């Protein structure tokens, strides 16, 4: 056992730790657009919740190859994905639209009316 492989290879306990997925956030006047990369996650393994100003995205990977097949080389992990984003409640959480396609989750989070830019007319 070398030092480097002991650093790279997780122990059994570490395998249960969730992995933060790669994500992007875009902002427009009316909404936030969130793109989360979740390769290997099917619709059934995805859970999106919003509570106390925190948006949680949890994704469980589904196995792609027969489980009995031993791995020769791994660059990915089996850990679930978990992303927590906090917001200041100026979003309309009731109108969040989510779409999962080809391992990419796209969330549209509309801003609350009070947070949208307003043009003030000068009388």
């Amino acid at each position: 056992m070398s030092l480097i492989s002991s650093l790279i290879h997780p122990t059994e306990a570490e395998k249960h730790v969730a992995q933060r997925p790669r994500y992007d956030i875009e902002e427009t006047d009316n909404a936030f657009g969130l793109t989360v990369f979740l390769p290997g996650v099917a619709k059934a393994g995805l859970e999106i919740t919003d509570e106390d100003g925190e948006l949680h995205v949890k994704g469980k990977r589904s196995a792609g190859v027969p489980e009995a097949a031993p791995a020769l080389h791994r660059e990915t992990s089996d850990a679930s994905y978990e992303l927590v984003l906090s917001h200041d409640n100026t979003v309309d959480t009731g109108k969040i639209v989510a779409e999962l396609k080809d391992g990419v989750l796209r969330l549209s989070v509309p801003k609350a009316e009070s947070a949208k830019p307003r043009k003030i007319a000068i009388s």
Partner: protein
Amino acid sequence: MRYIQLTNPETRGLAPTALGGRHGELGLDDQLDWLFGTALSGFAGVARGGQFPVDLYQDKDNTYVRAELPGVTPDAINVELVNGSLSIQASRKVKSVAGEEEASFSRLVNLPDDVQADKVSAAYENGVLTVTLPVKEEAKPKKISISVN
């Protein structure tokens, strides 16, 4: 375009190391290459093009290559067997501030010699490409029964 070559798993021996991985059997240079290659792929890889992570599995019937390619349409994936290596190329349209640009990814994976090249199949599901490569019949372990008189 950049090709990253995996070390041929056959050259690493078949007994798993104490940690279940095979990297313990590589030299320090290989380990550093592997470590930094993987670390760097994490930044630009999936989002902007370049490398993507690949897993290699093998059971007695098949070798499986599993590649994470989220957001790529199956039409934009090209899988080819070239001289015993598996070439995976894919492209994805990426929206950015500057407009829409195309990101391309490619990777060359060295395969064991006993792959049956004409029976390769590939499937894409949930952003993961799985290529199944059957092992040649003559390479499979055969049980020879000995009759005792």
